[in-house]
Every structure is written in structure tokens, then in C-alpha cells.
């Protein structure tokens, strides 16, 4: 299951959705809103996506994972909108016959999601400023 949502992520339901009697291993990754980034304090993050392309890219990542590991089921949900500290921004659940495959496929999926799926986060710093996070782009000017 691949989806984008503005609601809280039901990671328990997502995990159940990838379980099966063929899978000896289930791995769940949760990305959560962190307070400190290089010493600066975050109060919230705003996530924006390009939904139709994001879903296409997530499906391509699932297909790539399936071509490399004997994955049984994949579930990926990314949240969009305003998230507070500790909120879950992304959940990736993978099941496979053995644990190494599930760990490797899960790591591949979250690592690739972060570099190829068109979703962006905007920092809301504790000094009241906001700043889009665009890796490799000058970060000094506030938006």
C-alpha cells in the first residue's frame, strides 16, 4: 500500500497490512519530527508534496525493492501538512521471509524516498522564522 495523507499515520494498521504467514520478518521504520537540527530548535515542520508524481515514484521504489529482495508486502505512508514535534511524518513497513531482506529493503526504501520522491519540508524554527529544506541549496536566507 502506497499513500499520502494529511491525517495521523496509522502505523499499527500499516504494520498489520504487511504481515503474512509467508513472512518470517516484518520491519517498520517511522520518521518523526525531531527537535534539534545542528543546534537549532524546531517547533514544527510543514510538509508539501507533488502528490501524483510522489505516488508514481513511491511505486517505482516498491518495484525496485521487489526486484532486489524477496519482499512479500510493502506499505509506505507519507504525511503532508503541519506536523508538531514527535509527530510521525513517514512510515515504511516491509515483510519478507527472513529478517536481513526486510531490513535491507526497508533501509533502501527510506533512503531512496528521501532523495527521489517529490516531498519537501519547511522548518519552523523557535525564533519564529521558517526555512524550506532543500539539500545542497544555500540555507542562509529565510523564506
Amino acid at each position, binding site marked *: 500500500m502506497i499513500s499520502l495523507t494529511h491525517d495521523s499515520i496509522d502505523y499499527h494498521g500499516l504494520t498489520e497490512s504487511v504481515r503474512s504467514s509467508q513472512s518470517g520478518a516484518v520491519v517498520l521504520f517511522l520518521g518523526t519530527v525531531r527537535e534539534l537540527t545542528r543546534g537549532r530548535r524546531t517547533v514544527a515542520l510543514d510538509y*508539501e508534496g*507533488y502528490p501524483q*508524481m510522489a505516488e508514481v515514484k513511491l511505486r517505482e521504489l516498491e518495484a525496485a525493492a521487489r526486484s532486489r529482495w524477496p519482499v512479500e508486502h510493502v506499505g509506505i505512508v507519507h504525511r503532508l501538512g503541519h506536523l508538531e514535534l514527535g509527530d510521525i511524518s513517514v512510515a515504511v513497513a516491509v515483510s519478507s521471509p527472513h529478517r536481513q531482506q526486510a531490513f535491507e529493503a526497508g533501509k533502501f526504501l527510506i533512503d531512496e524516498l*528521501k532523495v527521489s520522491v517529490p*516531498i*519537501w519540508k519547511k522548518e519552523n524554527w523557535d525564533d519564529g522564522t521558517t526555512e524550506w529544506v*532543500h*539539500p545542497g*541549496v544555500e540555507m542562509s536566507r529565510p523564506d
Partner: protein
Amino acid sequence: MLSVKLFARARDLAGSPIIQIPWSDGLTVASLKQRLGELHPAVLPLVPRLLVAVNNDYAGDSTIVKVTDEVACFPPVSGG
């Protein structure tokens, strides 16, 4: 005219989530970036790092863009 969707800082700098760019057959992604910078100078500093998507896939500078294509421009992604 070519409709181009903008996201994140690119949209903020241009002041609009979708812009129209005068277009003709045979123009490429490189032409698109150049025209975007000319029409929206505020976006110019970001242009060298902009990613261009054509029909929901990343497209290199030499890709030819048609007015009927679904086109988007945005800075590097930061999901997760």
C-alpha cells in the same frame, strides 16, 4: 503557453503555484529553466539547482517538452 507547476521555495519565490511560459515546438528542459529565470528573476538564484519533472518523471536538460506535457519545477526534495 506551457503550464509549469512550482513547489516549495520555487513557488514562494515566483509567488504562484503555477506559471505560464511562452512555448514552441522543439524547446527543451534547458530552455524552460532559462525562460523561467527570465520571466521570474526572483527564482533565478535557484535555477541551477532546480529539478524538472515531465509527465511525473525527472527530465534532463536535453529532454524536449511539449505544451501538452505535465511539467513541474522544484528544488531538491526533503521528504522523510
